[in-house]
């Protein structure tokens, strides 16, 4: 059965995050005043990298069960695409670090947070928060370029790891590609496979259109009236059975045929979206 490969250091998993840093990412996230999409997206990616690191932690050490990459995309004022990797000593050709390298690359901040004291009260404690990505947003959306870079990196990765759980590519974008039709490139990316199945592409569509949120739709008829929603839906993978089962157990609104697509998610739904994408693989080690 596909999407069941055991994840180990010999056969690591792969997560690649693509983050749109175009000007529309300055708008409010999920209609929530005071929280810009760029802040929410950066925070969500930092949180999920933290969660993956913690899942691979044995206490003092990290087990390198995953290779992780983050690619950001925007343009300059002339519209020239600017694609960049977030982690040090990575490139568009090789954007991945092992989890232990990702851990080493974090800026760790201390913040005061309120937690339950376990006896019905609340205490303020100092906790460490790792940060990899800082919010920024300007100009255009070269999504085709980002997907092409992802396809190139994932293609090389699948060749090197033929027996691994298939790569997962998670794209957070306003959905309005400024450099052409992203669908054919997305289809190319989704066709790259290991012996355990094809690459999974999930999309968090933070639209410029103010329409109600939609989570994990199974049909185009479930989509809001947004010119880009159908295209983003079609370039999102159907959840494999093991992922859908996990999403069901997390009480997420999934049905047979649900795709890894959320539209105008708020912060909670965005974090859940990244969590379901990465947790299904994490549970296999």
């Amino acid at each position: 059965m596909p999407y069941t490969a055991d994840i180990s250091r010999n056969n690591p998993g792969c997560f690649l995050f693509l983050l749109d840093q175009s000007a529309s990412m300055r708008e409010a996230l999920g209609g929530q005043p005071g929280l810009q999409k760029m802040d929410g997206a950066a925070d969500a990616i930092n949180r999920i990298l933290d969660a993956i690191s913690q899942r691979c932690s044995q206490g003092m050490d990290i087990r390198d069960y995953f290779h992780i990459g983050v690619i950001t995309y925007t343009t300059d004022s002339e519209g020239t695409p600017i694609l960049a990797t977030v982690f040090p000593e990575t490139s568009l050709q090789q954007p991945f670090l092992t989890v232990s390298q990702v851990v080493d690359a974090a800026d760790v901040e201390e913040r005061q947070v309120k937690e339950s004291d376990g006896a019905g009260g609340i205490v303020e404690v100092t906790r460490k928060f790792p940060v990899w990505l800082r919010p920024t947003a300007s100009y255009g959306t070269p999504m085709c370029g980002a997907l092409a870079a992802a396809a190139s990196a994932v293609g090389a990765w699948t060749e090197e790891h033929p027996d691994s759980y298939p790569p997962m590519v998670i794209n957070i974008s306003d959905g309005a590609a400024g450099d052409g039709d992203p669908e054919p490139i997305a289809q190319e990316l989704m066709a790259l496979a290991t012996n355990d199945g094809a690459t999974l592409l999930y999309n968090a569509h933070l639209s410029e259109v103010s329409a109600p949120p939609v989570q994990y739709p199974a049909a185009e008829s479930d989509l809001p009236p947004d010119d880009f929603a159908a295209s983003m839906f079609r370039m999102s993978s159907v959840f494999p059975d093991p992922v859908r089962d996990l999403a069901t157990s997390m009480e997420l609104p999934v049905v047979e045929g649900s795709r890894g697509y959320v539209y105008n998610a708020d912060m909670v739904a965005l974090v859940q979206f990244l969590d379901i994408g990465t947790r299904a693989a994490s549970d296999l080690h």
Partner: protein
Amino acid sequence: MALQPPKQFWLPKAGNRPDEYEDAARAVYPQRIGASGRRTVRVVVADGASESAFAREWANILTDAFVDRPLDLRNLTEESLSAWLAAAQAEWHAGVPWDRVPWHGEAKARAGAFASLLGLTVGTAPDDPRRLCWQAVAVGDSCLFIVRGGRLQVSFPLADAAQFDNTPALVCSNPANAGDLWEEVRRGGGQCAAGDLFILASDALACWFLASNAAGEKPWETLQALNASRWADWVTEQRDAGAMRNDDTTVVVIAVAET
């Protein structure tokens, strides 16, 4: 009746180093078997959950505690188990280098380590020193099998390969997260017979064993035929063939002889 020296084998999950093996097993024989305490044969397997932090340490603390501070399994109560466990939990807590735990391990360390526990004692019957009896306690999916007369007589606490999933009951090193452990405790016991074969295994091998038995095979014969030089290759073959999950793998085999 007498118990032969145990055969004990282990192998880390493929891809992990030996120092990352998070199962633990110990077997201790007294010079002369009696009815209780240090006079009993004590055999224990614990399987540290790799999702938790300092799980290897916790599995080792539990197995050491089981052989060094014998539990009276025949008269086990919630209170006696809690008291026994509290000392192990304190030892685990004292062993964590809290001031050096990196950020990625902090939350997990605070939550505590988790492990399955399977303990077996064999001693003389309280009313008849010529007879041997066994007592077992289990939390989680490490299993005890007793083979008698060429068939599987006891399968404890699980009896079906389909019962192995990703959410077994576990013993936690943090009392605050231990839940209602007594609810999860399974106990068993009975008489030993000459020729009995006791097999204790962590989940991957236990699941293989039950599937093999259900298919009409005699997995105990395979295990009896194994020796130290053949063990690792055999497990690797099973893993590669998809017959055994790639996980830390541990087994202890003890035969009851006539004298």
